[in-house]
């Protein structure tokens, strides 16, 4: 062992470990349940999109739901059987709400789908990291430490990484699944670590393990057989397994909230995640099972490699649950939650299920007033002043809570653990955070509504103006020596006609005055001006949106998980902006006639924005065409009264222009329904984002 210095983070606590109960026995294969309940949302991002239908037969390992977007991961059938339902079922979530699940009745044959190994090394040698990341996404690889952040996003390094940290700290009491994994599958794990190292081009690799797992340390030492990976033993102190805490312990780097650790040259992976990366890349095995610790009030505590979707009641029965269990904790006792029911299926996040007996989990006692003793501040690994956050949250002074860095709280629970007044502090922070998110969401909705309203006003004004212009043009045309009967489409009554003509004449004069070098240029100038206005408005809207998005990302809590989601969003927004600019440039470069047909919106652009831009550009082009035709008519009216006979061709052009106008209107109407659809999608996205954040808090635990 080297003399690598171990740094310190503030605070931390030593809750009773209770690891011995489950760490002594080898991992056993879990039961093959009659029915599997697979939540579609298996990562902190978007829920996967089902690819199978009810009644369909599926094989073990078959892709049954695809990743939806970049922050998402695929889902596979854990065993062979028949899809019996795709519907809302109880999932392992504290809310107890139903969520979309695929239910598979197993046929007991556990029949694998034909698998072909993905030649990731070839892809790597070809510099095609994207293909490897997409493959991992499609294999459903997510962070198994509890945060279920899609792993492929963490592999998207731009430059060489300084330090790759493999998190084997497993600091939460009761949980031993990583411990057993390290002990029993060290060779595979080390192979996986070397793959991840290669993918990230990391300079050094450190495995952080708490000193209460000497067997795991020994197993890894034996498996490494080389100097490229260093096992670093850190003192047992909860929450040393939090990504930020472990990074601090090993590198002395503090990753601030809202910053991605990769930007500081560090990336952190949980051991179980690395193991699944190895299985996926070398054995073409999607993530269809995980090791879960079953412990507490059970006859046979231990670790089980269980199929994802296994009903938790089956797992508890498998472990021999005894009578007297008060509740079941999903995850560890410091950061987990009480299950609303055991019908839920095991999710990829489920590292532990504890049946609690009152003896081990005595009542906390009455919540007493805070006496500001400061114990919580001494215990806080984020170096917050929890008693102040509690005070502000309680009195709903959310602004001040935010000022005091409420969102730096990783909800590790150390403060509530030490509180002599038995205050469930974390509950207050969760409450304050959700209130702030709700307020932000409603502000965003209000902004959206205002934006829409402003755009509507703008459009109505524009339409009114254009209508007036059109009318005036028609009348101007009609006022010409009345040779062209059709130009007199002017069924309009004579009174308004006179007024409009006057207006049109005035406008024409103005135009003439403005364009010193000629009518054509004047018109062009006006045209450009209008186009610029529209572009500016659109840009403003887009910028606002991008800003809101970045804000939302920036204020999201804890985890790198969200940091990366944010970075992703910003990247997307910037990309979209660049594309918009390109589109605008292209439109300007085009001849007016072509502009109408140009479809510049790149596929990658988000649909709503693209649609808006298309609509605006089409409208602009058509207006231009329309004005052109007008202009063609106007100079004749003005400058050449002698050659007054408006030739039929021109009249035809006017008619054509008007028709185009109508078409445009129809398109606009259609467009607004599209916008509505886009808005619905955005609302959904917001809900998803909130979930992401809720899940993100778990990132800190491994």
């Amino acid at each position, binding site marked *: 062992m080297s003399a690598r210095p171990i740094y310190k*983070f*503030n605070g931390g*606590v030593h*809750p*009773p470990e209770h690891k011995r109960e489950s760490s002594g026995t080898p991992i056993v294969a879990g039961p093959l349940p009659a029915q599997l309940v697979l939540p579609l949302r298996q990562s902190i991002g978007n829920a996967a999109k089902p690819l199978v239908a009810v009644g369909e037969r599926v094989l073990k390992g078959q892709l049954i739901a695809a990743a939806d977007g970049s922050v998402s991961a695929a889902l596979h059938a854990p065993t062979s059987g028949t899809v019996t339902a795709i519907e809302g079922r109880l999932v392992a979530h*504290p809310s107890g709400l139903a969520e979309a699940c695929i239910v598979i009745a197993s046929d007991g044959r556990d029949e694998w789908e034909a698998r072909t190994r993905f030649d990731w090394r070839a892809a790597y040698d070809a510099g095609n990291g994207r293909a490897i990341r997409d493959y991992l996404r499609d294999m459903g690889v997510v962070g198994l430490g509890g945060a279920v952040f899609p792993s492929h996003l963490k592999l998207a390094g731009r430059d060489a990484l300084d330090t790759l940290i493999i998190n084997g700290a497993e600091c939460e*009491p009761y949980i031993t699944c990583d411990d057993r994994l390290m002990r029993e599958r060290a060779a595979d794990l080390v192979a996986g670590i070397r793959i991840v190292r290669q993918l990230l081009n990391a300079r050094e690799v450190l495995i952080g393990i708490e000193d209460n797992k000497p067997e795991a340390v020994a197993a890894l030492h034996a498996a490494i057989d080389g100097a490229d990976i260093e096992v670093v033993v850190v003192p047992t102190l909860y929450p040393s397994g939090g990504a*930020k805490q472990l990074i601090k312990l090993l590198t002395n780097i*503090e*990753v*601030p*909230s809202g*910053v991605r650790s990769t930007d500081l040259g560090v990336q952190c992976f949980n051991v179980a995640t690395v193991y699944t990366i190895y299985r996926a890349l070398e054995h073409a095995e999607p993530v269809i099972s995980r090791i879960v610790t079953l412990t507490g009030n059970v006859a046979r505590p231990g670790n089980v490699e269980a199929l994802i979707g296994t009903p938790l009641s089956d797992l508890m029965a498998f472990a021999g649950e005894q009578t007297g269990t008060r*509740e079941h*904790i999903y*995850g*560890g*006792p*410091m*950061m*987990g*939650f*009480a299950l609303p029911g055991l019908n839920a299926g095991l999710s990829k996040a489920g590292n532990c299920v504890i049946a*609690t007996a009152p003896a081990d*989990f005595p009542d*906390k*006692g*009455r919540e*007493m*007033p*805070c*006496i*500001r*003793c*400061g114990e919580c*501040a001494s215990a806080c*690994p*984020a*170096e*917050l*002043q929890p*008693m*102040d956050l509690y005070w502000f949250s309680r009195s709903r002074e959310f602004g001040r809570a935010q000022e*005091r*860095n409420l969102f*730096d709280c990783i*909800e590790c*629970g*150390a403060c*509530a*653990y*030490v*509180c*002599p*007044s*038995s205050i*469930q502090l*974390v*509950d207050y922070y*969760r409450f304050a955070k959700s209130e702030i998110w709700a307020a932000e969401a409603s502000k965003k909705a209000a902004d959206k509504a205002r934006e829409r309203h402003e755009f509507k006003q703008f459009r109505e004004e524009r339409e009114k103006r254009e209508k007036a212009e059109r009318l005036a043009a028609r009348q101007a045309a009609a006022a010409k020596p009345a040779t062209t009967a059709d130009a007199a489409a002017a069924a309009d009554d004579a009174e308004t006609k006179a007024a409009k003509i006057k207006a049109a004449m005035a406008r024409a004069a103005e135009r003439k005055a403005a364009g010193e070098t000629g009518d054509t240029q004047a018109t062009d100038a006006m045209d450009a001006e209008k186009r610029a206005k529209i572009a500016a408005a659109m840009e403003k809207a887009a910028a606002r949106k991008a800003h809101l998005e970045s804000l939302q990302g920036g204020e999201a809590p804890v985890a790198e998980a969200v940091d990366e989601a944010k970075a992703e969003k910003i990247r997307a927004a910037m990309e979209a902006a660049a594309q918009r600019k390109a589109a605008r440039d292209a439109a300007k470069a085009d001849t007016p006639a072509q502009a109408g047909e140009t479809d510049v919106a790149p596929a990658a652009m988000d649909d709503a924005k693209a649609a808006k831009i298309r609509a605006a550009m089409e409208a602009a082009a058509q207006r231009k065409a329309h004005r052109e035709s007008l202009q063609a008519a106007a100079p004749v009216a003005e400058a050449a009264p002698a050659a007054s006979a408006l030739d039929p061709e021109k009249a035809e052009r006017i008619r054509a222009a008007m028709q185009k106008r109508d078409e445009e209107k129809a398109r606009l109407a259609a467009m607004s329904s599209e916008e509505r659809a886009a808005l619905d999608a955005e609302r959904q996205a917001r809900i998803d984002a909130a979930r992401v954040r809720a899940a993100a808090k778990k990132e800190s635990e491994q």
Partner: protein
Amino acid sequence: MITSPFLTKPTPLQVVMTKVLLALLPGIAVYVYVFGAGILIQLLLATLTALGVEAACLKLRNFPIKPFITDGSAIVTAWLLALSLPPLAPWWMIVLATAIAIGLAKHLYGGLGQNTFNPAMVGFAVLMVSFPAQMSRWAAPQAELDALAQLTYIFTGHLAVPFDAIASATPLDTVKTTILQHGGIGELFAAPLFQAGQFGAGWLPGMMGWIALAYLAGGVYLFASKIIPWQTPLSFLVSLAALAGALHLVDPARFTSPLFHLFSGAAMLGAFFIITDPVSGPTTPRGRLIYGALIGVLVYVIRVFGGYPDGVAFAVLIMNLAAPFIDQYTQPKVFGRKGKAA
């Protein structure tokens, strides 16, 4: 219980308060040795009053009585008060002071955890301002008074000998008066009052210095059991000693030594048991340093230049007012935000 954490460290409030009371025991024992059993009567009176008033206030406020009356905080307040008063003060003084501390300073402000001021010091200050004469009537250390005589005197004011025969000003009081009258300390420290009794220890300012030493021991115990932080007591004692030392160097005939200041009056009791009251003090580490240091300055200023012989109570009350302000400007940098950009 649905939310994490599901575990809790078994150090409830009662344990904290019990440890504070335990830490006071050495001081009380020496106190009894120096002044006799009278202090026990005062402690008992204070405890009973505190519990009675606490129960009444909880009842009036519709709070559950049992969890709050057993948290021990009222007893801590009561004991601190009793230890601050002259041991032979008439019974109604401690009763009045305790009632004010619990009823007014604690419950009118919202009860446990809500009080702006240290309740015991409010009770003390009320007595100090309202009954200055009684507050300065200390018996001489090891006066020949048995427990029964002390009991009788506390409750009836009746004494076989005139009180003046056994009375003695405290060292702080004596120093103040002497300097006022003679412009210097002179040979004052040769007087029996300033001798530390049969156990020697010449640097201790009289028998009362032994009590202070016992408080110091209790304070170390509290620190070792992580009940109190180190910042407040240390910065207080250091600033008091530094100021006293500086002026003592300038003019030893006028300004007593740092040790005299550290071991007389309520300095030690204050350092570990009074200014460490978390509710009325700041919570940030730097804030605690500033708070303690400023109390030290105020105590010295009041003792040496003010009208009262001791200044702990008023210094604490003044700084209680400043605590939220100190907290506001001493917020520590959080994890990951310690760089320049933070």
